[in-house]
């Protein structure tokens, strides 16, 4: 609790009076800034009616009585839950004058641990989206709720009488209240089903557990307890189930210190390059078909080690190439039994059963996999989806209601489904934008944005959290919960429903130490954001070895295998209208705006294709084919193609003109196209699960070119071989060591700089008497997930510039993650290095500015004075880190609603001026003012930069280097600390901690050992 900001507020009307009344907006008028502020003011007035009624406010009244603690112009934090995906991380919503601005991680949250991913951080721009549906639609035309309700209820009555099927399709619902409402809604119908369709399903894991443990549950994976982690394709640091939680857990075991030189051992077997693979200690590139045999062989080896050999081989033998890897791994796993973890992304239930067997053999259940308190973050049941498709095609459905997922976009054969849907008597979409299903649905009942509505979540059995609205809905939208309740005859506000459900169901499950009265329990939860309660009984049976069968021999097919995956910035079509996410470089490929076909370097060479060649990807026998540009991906297995899902979403053509428009600019979206292409046509239902792996793929060149907009075009720390100077082949920008070497010498891996750090040409005449701000980034913890990039964008009003500007290497992100592949094969070092202004003590940018627009503060910050800058760009040229960003154009700020996302503490830069990371100087100043108002010195940790706050891995430490007791001072003394380009003597204030890989020391690689150069 002490970690929470002291101005944490609860938005509960019961606590602070009715602060959340809803004002009906003119349906014709768009929400103007003035209008919005007016309305935002109302929401703080006590003059209006209580509760969440829809009483229109006619007159403007001042607020003589502010809600307690509300200070105009000051950021207030509300503990909430992020519902950007079903992971349901804890979130702090920073609001200012009634306007939610900044999403942050909720400190102390049992799952997310204070971090928040890029998608969660990007919520505000989705809130202030002028193209969000503001009214219910009936047959594509604007309508009102009364009419829609009346007609839907009438239709439902007829369906009920006719005893026709009712199907409600949603992604995983973690909200207990919404789940109850769904059950209530479906209950009266004779044939009603709730179909769970996740944009990327994990159905096989649940199915496998049903077979091996007689409970269809998703285990709660506990990476923090695993000494040995083996992942078969599961991108658990990027997209798999709950990446923020897993990143926090994984990184907690990646900080070897002098006192305990220990860390987890992580092996990744995968066929494409995932973020998780790029962070593994050992990454083994495998053909996707090899997954089963490898797991089978591993289980056999473990069986031998355990003295309980398997009675029969589980799969065909894995290629003998992997023999030594598997033998070594089996031994490590067996040595770490009970403290190891095997995970797999396969959608083949058979393969998942083998994974369960492995975890059972190793005794991991109840230690690193929790089935007693299972996760509820993914609940898709693909059999249900398969049945639904059959029913739709068979014309057996009376009513189809779809929420939070675009049925037509995410499922294959959308053409035939569209025809089938047209025949369904009642189709209702709850989409916030007109997606593909909404376009054909009879009624569209737009849901609130997640920041506008009350909700709750139970991501983990026994961990329940609340999501509270932080402003009045901007349009005439209605929560799905409210719509369903209205149609099941018990209309009411979501707030009432949530509260009632909590009083009835959650409160009785409270733990012994919880408050005794519901009001106290509710208030505490609301303040804290979450509460842990007793988990529901789960009937888990002991592991059934009989359930594990021999794996079916995969069909041999000519051509490529295709892996369909989620891109980290775009986990689902729900976020396709978010420009921040589209412009966020993929942490692995660094490509923005759209998807592409990843091709291995071997295949690219063999086929004579290069980056940007447009190819046709098709599958024999099926009509689906896609034309996409190629991206040659290092580390991808040969004969494998990979395409990201969740692209090509309807409505993304809105971004065509998002960047500066001038005569040589290329549009972000080509005419009659969308951002990227939809690869869902390749998804196949097999054995009751959605398959994201296809074989027999044909690849043909089209001869056309499409330049991908990537923020990084050179990918190695090694300079090109043909022009490498002797001794300068590799740049020691990221330093590495191995755990063995680190245990022997904590300074191992330090690059040798011909620089003693002591000699200065100039006298030290720039003292930092009060503070000296600095930052340390632990590269061993950082996974490159890029949450910080969006955190910075949101905090610092970084504009979106569009495809063409990124293609021209003019992205504006202040924080970037450099990603390097250095070396070859399994010895390749893959590094992620967050890079932003290093706030150099001897800053090269400062001396060259002719007008003193960039100057040094006496707190060690390199400050950019926007209104003094004339834009010579000399500072950017002279920056060794190339972190300065120039406003090449006047980036559009014409959308007055979208402008509400801007942080009023940070200047919106005009054209022609330079900008860069300010180390969140506005946060530093706010922290200093706060401390001063209490008459106390600035406490260590009281000021957090945006990137630091959101980092799921807690890899960033920021603080006052003058404060000897601070965390940053401790971090600076870390033997792993180094500074990038230290030999230039620019004296950066940002330091990094060396990467330590838990792997054998390379025999040939000569690592310099030079303690002296790093003692200063």
């Amino acid at each position: 609790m002490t970690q929470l900001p002291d101005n944490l507020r609860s938005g509960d009307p019961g606590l602070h009076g009715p602060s959340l009344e809803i004002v009906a907006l003119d349906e014709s008028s768009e929400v103007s800034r003035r209008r919005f502020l007016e309305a935002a003011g109302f929401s703080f007035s006590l003059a209006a009616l209580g509760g969440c009624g829809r009483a229109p406010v006619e007159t403007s009244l001042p607020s003589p009585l502010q809600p307690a603690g509300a200070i105009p112009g000051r950021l207030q934090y509300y503990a909430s839950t992020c519902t950007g995906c079903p992971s349901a991380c804890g979130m702090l919503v920073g609001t200012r004058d009634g306007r939610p601005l900044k999403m942050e991680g909720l400190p102390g949250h049992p799952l997310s641990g204070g971090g928040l991913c890029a998608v969660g951080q990007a919520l505000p721009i989705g809130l202030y989206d002028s193209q969000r549906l503001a009214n219910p639609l009936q047959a594509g035309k604007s309508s009102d709720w009364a009419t829609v309700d009346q007609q839907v209820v009438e239709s439902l009555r007829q369906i009920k009488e006719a005893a026709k099927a009712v199907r409600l399709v949603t992604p995983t619902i973690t909200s207990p209240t919404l789940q109850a409402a769904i059950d209530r809604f479906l209950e009266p119908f004779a044939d009603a089903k709730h179909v769970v369709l996740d944009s990327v399903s994990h159905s096989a894991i649940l199915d496998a557990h049903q077979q091996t443990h007689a409970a269809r549950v998703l285990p709660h994976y506990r990476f923090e307890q695993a000494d040995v982690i083996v992942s078969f394709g599961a991108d658990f640091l990027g997209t798999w189930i709950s990446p923020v939680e897993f990143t926090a857990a994984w990184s907690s075991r990646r900080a070897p210190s002098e006192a305990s030189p220990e860390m987890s051992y992580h092996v990744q077997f995968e066929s494409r390059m995932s973020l998780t693979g790029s962070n593994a200690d050992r990454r083994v590139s495998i053909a996707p078909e090899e997954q089963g045999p490898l797991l089978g062989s591993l289980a056999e080896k473990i069986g031998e080690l355990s003295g309980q050999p398997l009675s029969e081989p589980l799969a065909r033998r894995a290629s003998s190439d992997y023999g030594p890897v598997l033998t070594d791994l089996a031994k490590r796993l067996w040595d770490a039994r009970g403290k190891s973890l095997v995970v797999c992304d396969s959608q083949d239930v058979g393969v998942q059963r083998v994974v369960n067997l492995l975890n059972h053999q190793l005794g991991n259940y109840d230690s690193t996999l929790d089935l007693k308190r299972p996760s509820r973050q993914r609940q898709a049941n693909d059999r249900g989806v398969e049945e639904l498709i059959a029913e739709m095609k068979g014309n057996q459905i009376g009513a189809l209601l779809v929420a939070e997922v675009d049925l037509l976009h995410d499922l294959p054969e959308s053409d035939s489904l569209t025809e089938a849907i047209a025949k369904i008597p009642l189709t209702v979409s709850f989409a916030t934008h007109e997606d593909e299903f909404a376009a054909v649905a009879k009624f569209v009942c737009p849901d609130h944005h997640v920041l506008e509505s009350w909700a709750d979540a139970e991501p983990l059995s026994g961990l329940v959290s609340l999501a509270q609205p932080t402003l009045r809905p901007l349009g005439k939208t209605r929560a799905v919960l409210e719509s369903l309740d209205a149609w099941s005859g018990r209309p009411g506000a979501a707030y009432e429903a949530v509260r009632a459900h909590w009083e009835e169901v959650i409160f009785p499950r409270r733990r012994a130490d919880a408050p005794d009265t519901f009001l106290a329990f509710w208030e505490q939860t609301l303040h804290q954001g979450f509460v842990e309660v007793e988990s529901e009984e789960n009937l888990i049976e002991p592991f059934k070895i009989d359930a594990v069968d021999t794996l079916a021999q995969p069909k041999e097919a000519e051509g490529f295998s295709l892996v369909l995956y989620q891109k980290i910035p775009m986990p689902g079509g729900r976020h396709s209208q978010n420009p921040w996410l589209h412009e966020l470089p993929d942490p692995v490929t660094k490509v923005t705006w759209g998807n592409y076909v990843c091709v291995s370097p071997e295949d690219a060479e063999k086929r004579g294709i290069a980056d940007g060649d447009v190819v046709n990807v098709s599958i024999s026998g099926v009509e689906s084919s896609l034309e996409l540009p190629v991206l040659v991906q290092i580390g991808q297995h040969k004969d494998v193609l990979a395409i990201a899902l969740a692209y090509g979403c309807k409505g993304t053509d809105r971004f065509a003109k998002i960047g500066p428009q001038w005569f040589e600019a290329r549009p972000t979206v080509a005419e009659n196209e969308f951002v990227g292409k939809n690869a869902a046509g390749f998804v196949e239902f097999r054995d009751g699960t959605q398959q994201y792996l296809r074989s027999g793929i044909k690849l043909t060149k089209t001869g056309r070119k499409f330049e991908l907009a990537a923020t990084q075009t050179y990918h190695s720390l090694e300079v090109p071989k043909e022009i490498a100077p002797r001794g300068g082949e590799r740049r020691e920008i990221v330093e590495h060591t191995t755990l063995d070497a680190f245990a022997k010498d904590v300074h191992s891996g330090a690059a040798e700089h011909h620089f003693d750090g002591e000699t200065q040409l100039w006298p030290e005449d720039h003292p930092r008497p009060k503070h000296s701000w600095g930052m340390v980034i632990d590269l061993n913890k950082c996974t490159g997930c890029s949450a910080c990039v969006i955190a910075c964008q949101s905090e610092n009003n970084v504009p979106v510039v569009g495809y063409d500007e990124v293609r021209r290497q003019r992205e504006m992100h202040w924080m970037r993650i450099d990603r390097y592949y250095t070396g070859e094969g399994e010895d390749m070092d893959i590094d992620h290095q967050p890079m932003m202004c290093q706030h150099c003590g001897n800053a090269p940018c400062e001396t060259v500015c002719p007008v003193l627009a960039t100057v040094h503060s006496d707190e060690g910050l390199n400050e950019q004075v926007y209104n003094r800058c004339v834009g010579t760009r000399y500072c950017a040229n002279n920056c060794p880190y190339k972190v300065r960003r120039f406003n090449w154009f006047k980036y559009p700020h014409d959308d007055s609603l979208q402008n509400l996302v801007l942080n009023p503490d940070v200047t919106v830069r005009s054209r022609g001026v330079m900008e860069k990371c300010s180390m969140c100087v506005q946060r530093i100043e706010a922290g200093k003012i706060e401390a001063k108002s209490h008459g106390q010195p600035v406490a260590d940790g009281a000021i957090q930069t945006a990137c630091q706050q959101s980092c799921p891995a807690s890899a960033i430490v920021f603080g006052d280097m003058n404060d000897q007791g601070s965390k940053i001072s401790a971090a600076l003394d870390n033997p792993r600390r180094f500074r990038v380009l230290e030999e230039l003597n620019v004296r950066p204030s940002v330091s990094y901690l060396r990467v330590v890989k838990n792997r054998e020391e390379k025999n040939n690689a000569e690592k310099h050992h030079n303690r002296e150069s790093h003692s200063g």
Partner: protein
Amino acid sequence: MVESKQKRSAPAVNAPSAEELAALRPTLITGGKRPGDVTRDICEPMDRKPTALWWAAFSVSLAALIAGTIAVTYQIAFGIGTWGLNRTVGWAFDITNFVFWVGIGHAGTLISAVLFLFRQKWRTSVNRSAEAMTLFAVMCAGLFPVIHMGRPWLAFWMGPYPNTRGSLWVNFKSPLLWDVFAISTYLLISAVFWYIGLIPDLATIRDRSKPGIRQRIASIFSLGWNGSARTWHRYETVYMLLAGLATPLVFSVHTIVSMDFATAVIPGWHTTIFPPYFVAGAIFSGLAMVLTLMIIARKVMQLENYITIVHIESMCKLMLSMGSLVGLAYGTEFFMAAYSGNPYEQFVFLNRALGPFSWAYWTMVSCNVLIPQVLWFRPLRRNVAVVFVICIIINIGMWFERFVIIVTSLHRDFLPSSWAHYTPTTIEIITFIGSFGLFFTCFLLFCRVAPVIAMAEIKGVLKNPPRSKAPQESAKGDAV
């Protein structure tokens, strides 16, 4: 002039006669010209209607200028983004063009001031156009630092002027500020020098013209020149002083321009050899440009007797020596990179020679070092057509030199993650062409309104003594 000099300096009884003196002089002006012929020949193009060739050249130049103006207007209206620059390559065509034009502007001062002080009489035929060229080149050069700014309307902030913003002042540590001073000083001194040299000729024009606007203008700007010994005395003193003042500028301007790069931390820029290297390069390119213009002017305006093959040869020799200095600098850079043991520095030079911009590097080496070697051969350097082609090649090479220094150093610097490529946009290319438009438009107009050759000075180096009777048009004896 000759007479007055003799009157002043050689009153001795047995002084050699004018004829005897003339016989000792090298033949700089051919065709047996007498002072009267000089005035007639040089003033004639101004009296005539422009030729068709002039009109053709002027139309092309003006068209280029207009296109350039449109491009710059578009760029200022929309932003620097209309150029091909990016977060890694912050300067490219803009500063390349700036340094290129400043370099061209160098020969003017060199020829006018340095050669004057060294009593190189052959300079008289070319100094006027070289000075004019300097002015126009510096104008073109000055344009780029202004339009390359993100907010060019605030360019005046670069000046240390008293303001109401408290202690807000310019950064005297910044080489860009030094540039402001260096370039503006250079422009001012060059303009004054050019104008002072023009005064006697303006008086000639005044005296030759019929009453009218031209006469009135010439009469204002000739500042009441009356050709008296006193006037000549004052004139020569001022001219000498200005030559003395301008000489350091030949070295200072490009030294300071080179410091834009030399004081930076970027490998390939951070080099102590830059000041002499840039000065040599600037003189090299300036001479090539002067020669290019002179060869054209000589042909078009039938001035073969004034700009003789001797002039061209002298310039070629100077060019050859400067070109060799430049070649030496190229070699030294590579040696220093290898010798420094600095991997970043070494990489930059390997990348220049073998990386993505190697075509630019080898263009530069071929144009500036290899091809000018033909000037060692006397018949070739006396062949006007060959010299013309070589001058054009040198100009191309010197443009590429600046492009190579700026772009190849920036595009792959310290962190490989930020490496980027650079491709110019249409706007950038048209802006560059537009600067040529500005230059040639100014030059062609100059040819129409002022004598392209310093008549007063030419008359001082004539081999033929003046006729006993002064020509009619110099009735007052002013310029004779």
